[in-house]
């Protein structure tokens, strides 16, 4: 069996051994044990460490070979020098997925040890994640090798976004942001040095992972660029990939003698690969988080946007952003105009953006959005919500989630403001309504959704 066929065991719901487990607080393997126990891991946890009889109230084993039950996954957090031998034991124990947290391999010039580790994994057909990484987190099975305490790094709820990240630090901060905004995730894969399996293998796995609908890829340097391109091309046709390439502008290419050599560095090749595969490229970490959230929406049939707002200026800013980004402020159909005329106060005017003005309540939004849903010129519902106005209260949450459930058009919310507004953002996001703090970030995300939808329609 190929190593990559066993990736699913890295997220085992059944059993996990923590090798190097310790009762000493704040040690990496202690935090991992705590996170598995406090996080309510769905399977059985087996601490392994010859030094202890018991760790956190669980019987501790001298080695994995001592465990009688079948074990599917192991998390290794020991000094690097012991890791190949430990993985060998895992192989003998028929453990199929091994997460190596430990650093001290290729990243510090210890390539030989990393090569040894790779060979052991391949000998036994083990899916090896790492080394030098945060490993895996799955909110469904609650497998969790992220060695950051839960009170410091909140875990996001189960959802549909998978993260594949070369950097643990970047990956974990996105996890934290996702948790803060109640954005659900399906799988978190921090692969570090990628000794055996790399982002290509994980993307291939996620292509058929039933929980995953959208994939985030954070990459610094790929090991198999061409293969990555081919796999992205294939996977992205089924599930949108949002990619962030870091390390874009390294040292100038001194050796380049041609104009082309001077104009096109290695990032040019990544950019070309993303564009050709129609992968959604985020330029910054902020964009990455903004873009991915909009992809839980249905794909729009076009680029016509209907805007409803309770503040005129914010509507104008949003219209500007739409124009700049090549999206269309839709013309309302006649039936919509007639319908809106009935619900607007006498001093309101029927235009897109539709300004319900500051005395609008949830009910006003509901009527307007129901007309937007049936309007053929409108492909996307854009709700600007100034929560600061007196009539806006929790009822708006109910209205917006009801609208979302009753239409196949994508809907986003723009809610600009401070801490009170932020509460609404978090709640709406928790209900699967992408909610943005600025018109510009919302519209940029929408543009990516529209472009991806166009690509899928042309397929």
């Amino acid at each position, binding site marked *: 069996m190929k190593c990559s066929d066993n990736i699913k065991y890295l997220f085992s719901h059944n059993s996990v051994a923590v090798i190097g487990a310790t009762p000493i607080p704040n040690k990496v393997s202690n935090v991992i044990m705590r996170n598995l126990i406090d996080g309510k891991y769905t399977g059985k946890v087996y601490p392994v460490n010859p030094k202890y009889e018991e760790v956190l109230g669980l019987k501790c084993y001298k080695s994995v070979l001592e465990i009688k039950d079948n074990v599917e996954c192991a998390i290794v957090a020991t000094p690097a020098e012991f890791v190949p031998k430990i993985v060998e034991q895992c192989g003998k124990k028929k453990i199929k997925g091994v997460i190596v947290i430990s650093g001290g391999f290729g990243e510090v010039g210890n390539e030989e040890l990393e090569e040894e580790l790779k060979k052991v994994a391949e000998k036994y057909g083990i899916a090896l994640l790492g080394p030098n990484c945060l490993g895996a987190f799955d909110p469904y099975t609650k497998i969790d090798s992220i060695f950051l305490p839960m009170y410091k790094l909140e875990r996001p709820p189960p959802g549909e976004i998978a993260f594949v990240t070369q950097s643990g630090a970047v990956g974990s901060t996105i996890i934290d942001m996702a948790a803060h905004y109640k954005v659900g995730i399906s799988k978190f894969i921090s692969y570090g040095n990628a000794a055996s399996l790399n982002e290509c293998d994980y993307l291939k796995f996620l292509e058929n992972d039933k929980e995953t609908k959208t994939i985030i890829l954070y990459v610094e340097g790929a090991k198999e660029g*061409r293969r990555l391109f081919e796999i992205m091309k294939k996977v992205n046709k089924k599930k949108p990939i949002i990619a962030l390439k870091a390390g874009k502008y390294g040292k100038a290419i001194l050796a380049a003698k041609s104009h082309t050599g001077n104009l096109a560095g290695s990032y040019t090749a990544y950019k070309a690969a993303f564009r050709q595969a129609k992968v959604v490229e985020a330029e910054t970490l902020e964009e990455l988080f903004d873009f991915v959230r909009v992809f839980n929406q249905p794909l729009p049939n076009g680029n016509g946007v209907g805007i409803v707002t309770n503040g005129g200026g914010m509507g104008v800013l949003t219209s500007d952003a739409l124009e700049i980004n090549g999206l269309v402020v839709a013309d309302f159909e006649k039936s919509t105009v007639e319908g809106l005329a009935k619900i607007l106060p006498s001093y309101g005017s029927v235009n897109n953006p539709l300004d319900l003005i500051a005395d609008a309540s949830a009910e006003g939004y509901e009527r307007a959005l129901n007309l937007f849903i049936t309007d053929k010129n409108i492909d996307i519902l854009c709700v600007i919500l100034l929560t600061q106005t007196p009539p806006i209260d929790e009822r708006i949450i109910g209205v917006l989630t009801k609208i979302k459930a009753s239409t196949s058009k994508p809907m986003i919310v723009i809610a600009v403001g401070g801490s009170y507004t932020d509460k609404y953002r978090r709640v709406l996001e928790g209900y699967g309504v992408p909610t943005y703090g600025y018109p510009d970030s919302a519209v940029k995300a929408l543009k990516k959704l529209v472009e991806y939808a166009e690509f899928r329609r042309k397929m």
Partner: protein
Amino acid sequence: MPLEEFKLLEKYGFKLLPYGLAKSEAEAIAFAKKIGYPIVMKLISSQATHKTDIGGVKVGIKNEITLKLAYNEILENAKAHKIKEIDGILVQKMARKGLELIIGGKKDPQFGHMIILGFGGIYVEVFRDVTARLCPITRVDIREMVTELKSHPLIEGARGNKGINMTALEQMMLRTCKFMEKENVLELDLNPVVFDDSGCDLIDVRFTKVETGKLK
């Protein structure tokens, strides 16, 4: 460019504007007669990479009298800039008036061969208006690349100018990809290629193969 490389390029359908490297004024006149006026003349020296900046390029030469003047002026300019190693003066058929684009390519260690298209000519590294794709490419890729350039209105036609001949661009780019992949090219510049609505002129080609690593 040595004859050998030129023959290789011809095999793939690249046609450079007729040219000759003159070592004397008399030779320059002979080339010009063979090629036919108008012509351009360029200083060829390893010491002069930016020929235009030092007055090493003369364009629109219509007859023998101006040729002689230009020939000597180029040599004087070279002397004024302390350029001693002169390979000769390039005499080349004057290109059509049109839009100067760069088509280039390189082999990336991770992704393999890629092709670039950009706003070309002497300002190529000033504007850095380029876009890239991995080889092989399709006509759809080429259309997308064009729209990604900031200068794309010029390609498609603006202010009374007709757009460029898209078929010529497509052929040139598809040919370039094929050439790079088949000959395992490390780096390549077609710069500039001058396009108008009826076709294009290829003025200069430089490339290195992976095995030699030297730019020809």
